[in-house]
């Protein structure tokens, strides 16, 4: 039973990973792509990690998994913002010359 739940979580995580990737490929510009990366991907990792968590026995290892997830969550929410800001800062004068090459 536990195995079934765990696999369900892992595979639904995979579905969101896939959705995030397709989102990145289909979205029209950088800012829209960031939506897909920060949201779908985090959910993917969250579900996958909880699926893996059910298979562990040591509570400290479970907490470590939780730590990894929170870390990726916070990092990608803020990292996404840094990229978004970077994009906005470049916008007024079009793509900077080094992008054009």
């Amino acid at each position: 039973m536990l195995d079934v739940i765990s696999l369900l979580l892992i595979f639904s995580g995979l579905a969101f990973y896939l959705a995030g990737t397709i989102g990145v490929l289909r979205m029209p510009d950088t800012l829209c792509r960031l939506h897909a990366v920060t949201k779908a991907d985090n959910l993917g990792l969250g579900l996958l990690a909880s699926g893996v968590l059910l298979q562990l026995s040591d509570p400290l290892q479970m907490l470590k998994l939780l730590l990894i997830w929170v870390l990726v969550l916070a990092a990608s929410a803020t990292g996404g913002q840094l990229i978004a800001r970077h994009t906005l800062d470049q916008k007024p004068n079009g793509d900077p010359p080094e992008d054009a090459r």
Partner: protein
Amino acid sequence: MKAGALLYLDLIMVILMLVLAIGALHARSLRHAVILFIVFGLVVALAWARLRAPDIALAEAAIGSGLAGALLLAALRDRRPGDDATRRAPVWQSVAVGGLVTALVVLLAWAFLEVQGGRANEPLANIVQATLHESGVSNPVTAVLLNFRAYDTLLELTVLLAALLGVMSLGPQRSPMRAAEPMAAGLIGWLIPLLILAGGYLLWVGAHAPGGAFQAGALLAAAAVLAHLGGRREFQLPGHTRLRLLAVAGCAVFTLVGVSTLLGSGVLLQLPSDWAGGLILLIELFATASIATALFLVYLGGHPPSWNSREVHPDA
């Protein structure tokens, strides 16, 4: 799905590594090349994980992808216009490099076959496992690196020191950055303590599980790189005497231990079994400090202002 299906994953990784390596070499611009190189490091780290070599996966994730990525991006920032001109190498250079690489591949293939089926009577891994209890640690990789083949590691530390000396001769360091905007500063503010803890953990865990001085040093160096990127002026480099001491501490302590074992037992770096655990931790502690110092100074890309104060700066 049988276990053989994992072969598909391995195949994907091999193809990706080749695509990325070629892509990085033939990228449109240096920026593209650097980003492809960072992702290459990521895939290599995953490949090591797949090969059940977490020690190397850790080192590759920390140094190959993370730290080297930050270093190359910083180097790009500093380049002057015109540096980016993609100069075609002369034919003789390409031929010479190609020849050397081919020779290396042949040598590696030969070494691989030799280890696989060859003349060695017993696989090395068995010998290591059989004598692991004498090494003072329970992680076979650390046992090899710091006990059985300690002089290799000592020489590696020396190579890093030599590289550092080369970088220090390049001129003054990268200039400090302006203070980061609030979001980046906030992120850096909680990442640095976490990197310190993770570095300490890898140093400690190296004794019985994957980890060790190189990985730990890389994480501490990454913490310092973040402080530089965030423009945090409250973290000053130590003065030049202390900085020099930090840079050579790893080699020095390692050599001291080696010489004392030479005096004690007559064999260089023959660690006595009952002390080995403590000695290895001691060496790793100082090696971590030196590696972190060296990697960060290499990131700075030149000597700190305090390094040689007698030098006359032309633009002063």
